């Protein structure tokens, strides 16, 4: 069960000719695919593409009706390889993933498909995870487009244009026999907007029909001598065909006035809205893009179109290139084109704009202002004096991401902290997934992260003498590649390290999608394949499964055993407990229903006694649950805030277990609240409370006597 359901929204994908469609960017892309007669769709989740995968999954029924095949691929490599269907057959296919990491994973298959070329249109929708909110290295997909020669679309954030460009991308791909990368930026994925729909089209040829009539063309396979032929084809046929298509169909756009302009701006399509706002604030554009200088919008950022560039730059003293990220591939290419055209136009990009970092509205406002001041002073705004900042960064505490309330991964790291107290610090090779939050406060565990599913491989160089390295792997990463790249590798190379596999039942970090080992019933996928069986199958002998990670003491003991056992060879602990976010989504409505139906329901939560808590916060440093927080000390003699459990507590029990395992303090209590108690509950309760109340009445008098 995914984090967000698009079940009701995907109904809108049925809209036909002339109907208005309103929704998020990812729905617009999906609608574009269906209008293009796509035959198959695949991909792998990861921000900002997770929700697009959820849309695909929720639209499965509609796709089946249309004869479109959809699958949730095992990895980006699987998804890219699926595009092989478009090599020999006129099948349009689209796959999606998070870039640049997903593109890294997929690059083997991508190189092959880019070399051999395609018959049917092949589209790779990449969610560019760059700038604010990104959790990955800041790199550019552009480099992949250049090295493999695939065309890169970076659409101006406008739904009608995005839908059109999806359809055009298939045509471009077919006209140039080249796969096309379609780049969606994070905000563009979730931007809401409106466009006029067209009718969905069933694929003219389905994947089933193609499989029934196989066709073979050895020239499309990357083997000598065909591979050398491919390179020539790329340069002599595919590239010119693409340039022709882009130019003829005017995929790039022009805004503003070109009358006698001495300066102009060239911008990546995805940044156009931000640029226009900057121009508005400078006072040289309006809300409709009527700028006082010409703006050339590259909806296709690779390849560039030499004629268009020459036309735009001719007669201008300078152009500003707005290109986010580095290296500045577009700027380099523009300089080459201008040199070849023998123009004297200055190309300014990174000389004026920051070399690194996101191009926000403020950055562009500053950059364009600097550019104008230098090259077109009559357009430049008067400079403003800046008032001093009323707050400094130190005044506002940072909020690093952390584990959710009741997360089953937290106790694993609490236990690791306890083990490290006994045995000293360990080298910890971390992995991609929610568990990576362990590197942040309050746990501060983890030395490196080398990529998804690569936790164990990242520890493989450590051949311990007497201190084993610890690797972390998520269940998502395990099935993505960790089983082979990590566990298989460790068996083969006789590793002696420990791998902890966090088996929470979902690909949790990407929004709770099902995977091979998910315990959930899934009508369209096969689940419930235990990780332990796979690990044993590949040859690990020391494997333990802990079915309740909340047992901090048990986890600590198991870790200690794995780290001190005499047995050689890779050790694997499978730590199982369901992702609490998904569990609550499932359990809470059911519980509320039972309560209102008058059924006996037991709710558990934790609390802290304010008069025994002394405000040391050891419990917070060992657990870090969002619902375990602090509040002012009610004791007039004490100053330090005390620990406090908020109502969002789901009663997972970790704070109690931690205070037990670490011998902390007796302040924690668990409250078990029986709603709609049975007759027996009530009788038992009456007996207990009568004894307790009698004693309390009696001591009350003695307390009053010795009172102040």
């Amino acid at each position: 069960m995914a984090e967000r359901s698009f079940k009701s929204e995907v109904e809108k994908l049925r809209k036909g000719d002339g109907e208005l469609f309103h929704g998020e960017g990812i729905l617009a892309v999906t609608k574009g695919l269906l209008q293009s007669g796509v035959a198959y769709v695949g991909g792998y989740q990861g921000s900002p593409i997770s929700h697009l995968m959820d849309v695909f999954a929720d639209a499965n029924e509609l796709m089946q009706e249309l004869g479109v095949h959809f699958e949730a691929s095992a990895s980006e490599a699987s998804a890219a390889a699926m595009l092989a269907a478009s090599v020999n057959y006129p099948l349009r296919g689209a796959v999606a993933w998070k870039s640049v990491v997903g593109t890294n994973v997929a690059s083997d298959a991508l190189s092959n498909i880019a070399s051999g070329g395609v018959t049917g249109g092949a589209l790779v929708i990449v969610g560019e995870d760059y700038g604010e909110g990104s959790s990955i290295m800041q790199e550019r997909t552009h480099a992949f487009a250049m090295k493999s020669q695939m065309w890169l679309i970076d659409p101006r954030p406008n739904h009608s244009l995005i839908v059109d460009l999806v359809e055009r991308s298939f045509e471009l791909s077919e006209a140039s026999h080249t796969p096309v990368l379609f780049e969606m930026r994070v905000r563009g994925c979730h931007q809401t907007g409106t466009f006029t729909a067209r009718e969905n089209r069933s694929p003219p040829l389905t994947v089933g029909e193609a499989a029934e009539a196989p066709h073979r063309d050895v020239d499309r396979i990357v083997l000598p001598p065909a591979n050398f032929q491919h390179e020539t084809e790329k340069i002599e046929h595919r590239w010119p065909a693409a340039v022709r298509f882009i130019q003829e169909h005017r995929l790039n756009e022009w805004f503003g006035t070109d009358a006698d302009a001495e300066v102009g701006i060239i911008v990546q399509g995805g940044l156009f809205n931000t640029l226009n706002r900057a121009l508005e604030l400078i006072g040289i554009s309006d809300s409709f893009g009527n700028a006082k200088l010409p703006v050339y919008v590259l909806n296709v950022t690779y390849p560039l179109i030499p004629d268009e560039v020459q036309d735009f730059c001719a007669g201008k003293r300078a152009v500003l290139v707005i290109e986010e990220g580095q290296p500045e591939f577009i700027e380099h290419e523009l300089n080459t084109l201008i040199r070849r055209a023998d123009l004297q136009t200055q190309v300014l990009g990174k000389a004026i704009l920051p070399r690194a970092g996101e191009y926000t509205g403020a950055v562009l406002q500053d950059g364009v202002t600097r550019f104008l001041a230098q090259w077109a002073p009559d357009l430049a705004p008067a400079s403003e004096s800046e008032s001093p900042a009323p707050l400094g960064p130190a005044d506002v505490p940072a909020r690093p991401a952390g584990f959710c309330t009741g997360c089953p991964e937290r106790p694993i790291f609490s236990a690791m902290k306890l083990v490290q107290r006994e045995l000293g610090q360990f080298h910890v090779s971390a992995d991609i997934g929610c568990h990576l939050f362990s590197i942040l406060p309050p746990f501060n565990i983890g030395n490196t992260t080398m990529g998804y599913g690569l936790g164990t491989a990242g520890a493989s160089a450590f051949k311990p003498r007497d201190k084993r390295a610890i690797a972390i792997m998520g269940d998502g990463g395990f099935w993505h590649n960790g089983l082979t790249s990590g566990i298989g590798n460790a068996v083969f190379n006789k590793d002696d390290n420990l791998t902890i596999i966090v088996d929470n039942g979902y690909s949790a970090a990407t929004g709770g999608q099902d995977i091979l080992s998910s315990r959930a019933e899934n009508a369209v996928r096969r689940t419930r394949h235990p990780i332990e069986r796979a690990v044993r199958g590949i040859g690990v002998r020391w494997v333990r499964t802990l079915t309740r990670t909340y047992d901090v003491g048990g986890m600590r003991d198991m870790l200690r055993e794995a780290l001190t056992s005499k047995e050689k060879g890779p050790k694997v602990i499978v730590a199982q407990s369901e992702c609490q976010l998904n569990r609550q989504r499932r359990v809470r409505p059911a519980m509320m229903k039972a309560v209102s139906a008058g059924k006996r329901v037991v709710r558990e939560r934790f609390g802290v006694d304010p008069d025994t808590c002394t405000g040391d916060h050891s419990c917070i440093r060992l657990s870090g649950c969002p619902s375990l927080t602090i509040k002012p000390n009610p004791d007039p003699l004490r100053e330090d805030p005390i620990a406090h459990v908020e109502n969002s507590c789901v009663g997972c029990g970790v704070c109690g277990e931690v205070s037990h395992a670490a011998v902390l303090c007796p302040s924690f209590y668990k409250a078990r609240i029986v709603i709609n108690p049975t007759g027996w509950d009530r009788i038992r309760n009456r007996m207990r409370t009568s004894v307790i109340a009698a004693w309390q009445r009696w001591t009350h008098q003695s307390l009053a006597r010795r009172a102040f």
Partner: protein
Amino acid sequence: MAGESLTRQRITIAILALGGEGGGVLAEWIAEVGRQQGYIAQSTSVPGVAQRTGATVYYIELYPEDHASVSGGEPILALMPVPGDVDIVIASELMEVGRAVLRGFVAEDRTTLIGSTHRVYAISEKSAMADGRASGERILDAAKRKARRFVAFDMNEIAEQHGSMISAVMFGALAGSGALSFPQAAFEQAIRAGGRAVASNLAAFEAGARALAGETGRPAEIHHLPAPTTKKGRAFLRRIHESLPEPAHAFAIHAVRRLMDYQDAAYAELYLERLTSVRELDTGEEDWRLTCETARYLALWMSYDDTIRVADLKVRASRFERVREEVRARPQDVLDVIEYMHPRLEEVCETLPAAIGRRILASGTLSSWLRPLFRKGRHVEITSIRWFVILALLSGMRRWRRTTLRYAIEQERILLWLNRIRSAARIDPATAAELVECQQLIKGYGDTFERGMSRFGLIMDVWETIKFEPDAAPTLRRLREAALADEAGTTLDGAIAELRFAS
């Protein structure tokens, strides 16, 4: 803003919220109400890692449809807020109000800033070893100065009252602020159209709209001093007034009350004697700091938390009521309470008569034989008769507390500390006050208590070597702060090593 014409038509709204607060739903509601009122509405966000407790920004732009249709069709709307160009900022928490100011979203000539004044503490604030809370005063002050209009109240409290997400209250505050000139019914319609928890959201929305009194934060709570209820209490009060300087009265009153409750009047008497012995050496510097701090920390040390005290606090009727209220158990629900207790052999022996306790702890065979019995933590169901009776009997051991090993140990420590304080006070009361404040390192139970005690001991060792030096006071302060800087004690060790090196 610079250069931009007076025909600016757009309305820009940024929401700063934390994951799980319903910021996305709020953005949808705002876009929906905009659309109903004849605006083209666009919203965007950056989901991802931010949704797990991180801070995130949702951004909405509204553009009047009629203006768009006469001016050029589809307006180009931005996907992120630009400093100086945000009309309305809605922040779900006080530090997020600060973040909005810090990021420049709040402009004096434009921005209506709507913020909740409650706190959701960041992990750095929560995990500090003492008080790591950021200053809310500074944020409120900056918000008042920076915003064209600042609307602030505790939205979380209203959300809790109505069992809704804070987003509904924020939506109400937006409607009530009048920053968007739409009728209230239109806002309500957006909630209905959203179809999520409509009844509770509407109630919280209305409360949020009404709560808009323009106040910026709650007044500080005033602690009323307890009035004596017994003859002994009244006598103590008189004595405090007569023998102690006025600034120390509040602490001394709370302290006497606490120690009478903890042990008895004689114990409170002992406290006052000890306090007076320090007060006599105080010259009244810094508003009687030495006496005030001794009044506070001596009481805390004398009411050390032993097993008797913990049991006593756990079994009280007032505590049972507090738990019931805190976990929101309704009168018809049955409530069981389970304590997480971990008495080790040390704590058990310390509750025994001093001679016996000392003997067991000193004897290797005896303690190694007994220790396994206390290795595991216990789940103590205090609402069961069996466990309640055990804890009630333990709390009754208060009468024999003076015979316990722990009592002997703590009184010895207290006397040693007081002696140091008094001898320091004869030279310089300010240095003595620093010594007093070192007591704040000693807190908690089990491992935490031992860690604090050992650091206290380290600093006292240093004290013995520096006590005649002129800058002993700042050194003590620095060491105390170092002791609270990290859990492993590296900062303190470093500070001590530095001192040795310097001398």
